[in-house]
């Protein structure tokens, strides 16, 4: 007898989306996506590039660009236990985070391995938003065991969000009528009346430049897009696709999940997960704040000091060291690690990369084995790498309040 399966028709299940999901901005982004170049992010159609990735990238450094971050997963954690629960989950001190501020955060397993990173918004004393590129509802629920007085809600569908990034972003927002936005300090939150309700603007982003993220009711999404592009024309506004954002974030020194690290809940083999110490995230591990999940394991790892290290590299030549293996000698006798992200940086005018290397080799000579093509012909090259300790790209305007032209 043939095996039978009786599946409920997908269209009768209201929570299952058939095929790709569209962001609240989709009609607008689709119109500008002249080559219909899409990728899928958390099930949503997300533009790879609208017209030309490099031109879009340059808008983040010279004018301003808009990236649709609506596919990000957003969670609301609200209640008397919210602060204590989050403070125990993430590595930074939530108790000292002021209302209406944002903090970049990470959370780890008991073994001190990085699960994911994201931004934590404190919207009131007992009300937080956690935004992450990947779903984290399960971990939030697990982390809430023992903290009964709070509620966790997936608000991903309740917020339409855009990242507006680049040197003219503040001036554009001001011109749109959000006066006072120039006084928003990095990682602060301001609110303005908008559409039928309110817009939340946080001075945050993923490009390392001056920039903001805008959060509105999905019903007001197209209104926001239209105002940005009509007022923004003289500010050089461009839509940004994923390819341009990837370039900007590498220059800025931000990690990308599933590129620079694998979330520890998704790795299979031993040693394929990462501790935040390896990923140069030690600066956001607050060992003085009291207990947090993974603290004991991280303290032990830090004391031992033998962990791998993600380091910034300036590589000779102009061939990006994508997928390169790293060695401590030009003869390639000893493999010490590999490149996680690499690019030719147009603003820094350097061949930059992140390398994950065994700790003992981080300060010694490092050579990258680069494969590149010359008219389809593969060429192998060994390039000397110089370790860089300062950020590749950190313009003054990203920190200034108010920004210089506002």
């Amino acid at each position, binding site marked *: 007898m043939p095996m039978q399966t009786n599946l409920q028709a997908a269209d009768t299940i209201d929570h299952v989306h058939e095929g790709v999901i569209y962001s609240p901005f989709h009609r607008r982004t689709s119109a500008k996506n002249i080559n219909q170049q899409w990728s899928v992010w958390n099930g949503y159609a997300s533009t790879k590039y609208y017209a030309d990735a490099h031109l879009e990238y340059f808008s983040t450094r010279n004018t301003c660009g808009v990236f649709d971050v609506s596919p990000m997963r957003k969670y609301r954690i609200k209640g008397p236990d919210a602060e204590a629960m989050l403070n125990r989950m993430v590595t930074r001190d939530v108790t000292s985070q002021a209302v209406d501020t944002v903090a970049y955060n990470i959370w780890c397993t008991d073994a001190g391995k990085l699960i994911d990173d994201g931004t934590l918004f404190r919207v009131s004393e007992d009300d937080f938003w956690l935004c992450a590129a990947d779903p984290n509802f399960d971990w939030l629920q697990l982390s809430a065991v023992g903290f009964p007085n709070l509620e966790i809600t997936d608000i991903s569908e309740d917020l339409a969000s855009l990242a507006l990034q680049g040197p003219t972003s503040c001036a554009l927002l001001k011109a749109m009528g959000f006066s006072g936005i120039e006084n928003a300090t990095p990682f602060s939150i301001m609110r303005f009346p908008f559409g039928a309700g309110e817009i939340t603007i946080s001075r945050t982003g993923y490009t390392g430049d001056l920039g903001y993220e805008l959060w509105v009711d999905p019903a007001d999404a197209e209104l926001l897009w239209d105002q940005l592009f009509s007022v923004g024309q003289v500010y050089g506004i461009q839509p940004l696709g994923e390819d341009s954002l990837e370039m900007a974030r590498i220059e800025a020194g931000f990690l990308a999940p599933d590129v620079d690290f694998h979330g520890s809940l998704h790795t299979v083999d031993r040693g394929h997960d990462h501790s935040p110490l390896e990923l140069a995230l030690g600066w956001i591990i607050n060992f003085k704040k*009291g207990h947090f999940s993974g603290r004991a394991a991280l303290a032990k790892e830090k004391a031992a000091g033998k962990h791998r290290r993600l380091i910034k590299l300036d590589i000779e030549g102009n061939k990006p060291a994508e997928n390169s293996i790293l060695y401590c000698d030009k003869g390639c006798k000893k493999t010490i690690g590999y490149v996680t992200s690499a690019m030719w940086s147009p603003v820094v005018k350097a061949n930059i990369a992140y390398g994950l290397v065994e700790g003992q080799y981080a300060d010694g000579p490092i050579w990258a084995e680069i494969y590149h093509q010359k008219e389809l012909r593969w060429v192998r090259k060994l390039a000397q790498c110089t370790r860089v300790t300062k950020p590749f790209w950190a313009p003054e305007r990203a920190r200034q309040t108010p920004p210089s032209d506002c």
Partner: protein
Amino acid sequence: MSNYDIAIIGAGHNGLACAAYLAKAGRKVLVLEANDEVGGLAATREFAPGFRASVAQTLPQLNRGLVDDLNLEKHGFKLALDAMPTVAMAPGKSPISITSGALSGASAEDSAAYPEYRRLLSKFADAINPFWHKRPPMIADGDMGDLATLGKFGWNLRRLGKDDMRELMRMIALPAQDLMDEFFQDDALKAALSWDCNIGSKLAPRSPNNAVLALLLRMSGDLTDGLPLPAGGAGGFTDALAASATSFGAEIRCGAAVEKVLIDDMSVSGVQLSNGEQVQATTVISNADPKTSFLTLLGAQHLDVQFTHRISRLRNQGYVAKLHLALDEIPTFTGLEKPAGRLMLTPSMKYIECAFDDAKYGGYANELPMEVIIPSLVDDSLAPVGKHVLSANIQYAPYAVKGGWDQHREQFLANALATLSQYSPGIESQVSAAELLTPADLEQQFNLAGGHWHHAEFAIDTWWMNRPTYGASQYTTPISGFHLCGAGAHPGGGLMGTCGANAARAILEDR
């Protein structure tokens, strides 16, 4: 504020044993007990004027080593009965009496099978016995002591001989029913023998899991060659433990409920009582169940996420109710000259299984399997002259009964009395007072989350290096200075004081 080396939360028998060993080793120990008397579930309490009983009643797991180490006999511990026979009962059938040596009243086949059953299980129990009294090993850490324990465990199994070792490996996770069916024929006999595999756990004769291991733990005592009944109820044992601890210099404070464990810079600094008083101690040992210890007394904010999850997932809902009856005279049980011994009102394993079926879904059976003792027959300290105490463990009484115990208490008691009267017609008219303790009552009266005898289910996933869970199974916890010594730690439930003794040894070794 007062200062101690060690504060122990809870004066149950394990808390007291732990205190006695630590005080004996020279530590300055304070035991804090929320109730007005020591002993916890073992305390002998007056439930009606002149009538006394303890929730726990016999001492099958107690070891001579602990009794001697702590001079318990000097401190008043004695037995009312060395070896109490177990009597398999079924309405309309003649009872079968079971002792460790032989059956009486059983068929020739069953009588012939019993010695082999005892031989095999005693051999298994002896092979495993040393490991109940050792700190469980961790597998991955490569610690020499742990490797030695693992090595000895393997060697003890191998020493059983090839045939018996194979049998142990085959039988270790059998349901009680399969074990009994392999040896015996009589339904009541099989049911009575299966009882010790499952009592206290959310298990019934057909449940695979830890039935055989639980039986082996139950057989680990060496105090006598049978089932010992303590004089003065189980409280006689815990009172002696308390006297012993005190004699070694431990201080015991009753009516002192600990509200929380104090943490300073990731380490224990003491405890705070419900009246706000703080006691400083560099070591705090909890005799409370693991959920209460970690989630209530300590708080999830001090623990990692996955560890907290494992603690919160521990199965700790009790399924045993305790019945105490004050009787005007010695009740008559059909077929028995005198209701001496442990009377198993369990006609068959199916009868037990059906009662379990009801309980799984939040109900309880009309006919309730029970284990009955009338300790006053051999102990006149428990009832006024000429009167008697009936003490019964009843399965299954689900902690989370549908609708809550307030609305079921009367009916459950009525079912229990109706079941009893099938064996002892007219017993209701002899009852002058009754106390029914459901798991919800145990939780409330003894601060025992879930009202579970063993604090957390004794099962394969919560056994040995996983008891109560990895990360807290070696009498240490993720919090420096915080330890467990209750039944939620290895080896588990049952009056033997081994959790407390093992914890004390582990703490002394670490110093």
